[in-house]
């Protein structure tokens, strides 16, 4: 199947128009939507999972679900938040289906970009790996809220929109996940340094 890059005019369309044209089955609009949102969706999924393992399947599932329900997009939020909501749902199902095992470092390196400070990157990666290994024991909904807010730094309101809950519920989920993480980090020096690097704003 030969795919052509979307025309510049399509990439500048507002959310409502783009969604309408995607819903009408216009292939060029669908490609423009895919090109525009794919990085964001990948970011969301990556933050929750901590690796690119199963990423292709999850991205595929997210976009297929998005194209299947784009006719229902009402413009209450941005198209980006809307597709993040779908990505959160997809990754939740994935996490709930089976306990994820994080990929080893060698796997993570498969598609990685070159790093300037190799030692720092290795430490950070090991800490992240341990963090996600710990998050494997956390309920998926707590994990999603925690990773999107604490790891990816998204505002609570946005996390609430993505996960389809209230801000209070998101706070509660983050608190529970953070409690477990800090409990575990107290016994692990590498992780302790990593976790304490995330400090609350006064």
């Amino acid at each position, binding site marked *: *199947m030969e795919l052509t890059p979307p025309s510049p005019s399509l990439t500048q369309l507002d959310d409502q128009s783009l969604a309408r044209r995607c819903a009408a089955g216009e292939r060029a609009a669908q490609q423009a939507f895919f090109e525009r949102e794919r990085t964001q969706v990948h970011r969301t999924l990556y933050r929750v999972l901590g690796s690119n393992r199963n990423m292709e399947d999850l991205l*595929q599932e997210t976009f297929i679900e998005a194209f299947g329900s784009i006719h229902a997009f009402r413009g209450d939020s941005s198209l980006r938040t809307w597709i993040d909501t779908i990505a959160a749902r997809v990754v939740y199902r994935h996490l709930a289906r089976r306990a994820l095992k994080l990929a080893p470092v060698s796997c993570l390196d*498969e*598609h990685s970009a070159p790093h300037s400070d190799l030692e720092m990157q290795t430490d950070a990666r090991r800490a992240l790996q341990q963090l996600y290994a710990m998050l494997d024991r956390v309920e998926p909904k707590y994990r999603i809220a925690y990773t999107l807010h604490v790891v990816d730094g998204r505002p609570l309101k946005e996390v609430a929109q993505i996960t389809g809950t209230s801000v209070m519920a998101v*706070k509660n989920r983050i608190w529970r996940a953070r409690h477990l993480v800090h409990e575990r980090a107290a016994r692990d020096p590498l992780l302790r340094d990593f976790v304490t690097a*995330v400090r609350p704003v006064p």
Partner: protein
Amino acid sequence: MNTKHTKHTEPEWPIEPLSNAAWKRIEQRVFEQVSASAPAPETTPWLRRRFVWGTLAACSLAACLVLFSWSTGAPFASQPAAPLKRHYAAIGSAQQLDLPGVTVQLEAQSELAVVSHGVYRLARGAARFEVVHRGPHDPLAVLAGDVRVEVVGTVFKITCVANTARVETYEGTVRVVQAGQGTLIRAGEHWDLVELADAETTATDPTRAPSPQAEAGGTSSLPAFHATPARSPDLNLNLKARVSEHQRRRFELAAACEKRDPERALRIYEALSREPGPWAGNGLFALGRLELEHKRPLAAARDLRRYLERYPAGANAVDAQTLLSRLIPDGSPDALAH
């Protein structure tokens, strides 16, 4: 927990990028799937409107039919497709019958006949009826002997064994008509018609009260009950045992609430004393004793005297005599009146 948004003190943790080849694969698979599941041509607006209006009309019609069936008490929706039988018999084990407007649990050794639409006759045995709500002018009727039970929507059980009948109401109210007299039996209440002459039971149970028939000088104030005689004597004994058990419970309840609620206890004792059954004598004596304890000498004397007349050799006869002698020291009722 601090609910403020957090910031990271170190640079954002990098995201491992996907290769271009991976993105190509994803894109290709996504669009293959989207093409394969392309939506059907959209229905034209007028067709959609027609569909919506058609659905609404169908729903309204269905609602009207349900309301009509409910108000007329003819739930055609629950009509069985099979033709209605005229006679049902549960010989070996209990049966459940789904009849128009009523579900019947026909106990073993019981027979039920369909007289006409909404009228059933329990020939023998016991059956529990769960009647769906009917219009007030179209009650369901169950006949047992010359007893007619009318309901408009309730759960009740009727037992018809030998020359006895019992109507127990579990939900709602039923109207029992017998000898031209109607009685309303509410949920939790029951109505009994017990055949009076039972020589065997009377001989073995000294506390059993003589029947109202005997009390009235041998002529029955109750009309004869023409039910089909039971073929199983066990059912007859079972009914009597249940009546006795029920009376015993009521007697114990009254005894328990004598101090707390003496008026209630008096009412129960009085009711027991009027009923035929083995606990009538105990009820009558307890009634007299409690009336005496609550400074009602006239009523106490009357009831104790009735007890002695009915049960001269009863278990409480000596006590009744003692209490009566305290009330009337010189043996003259006139003395008590003053």
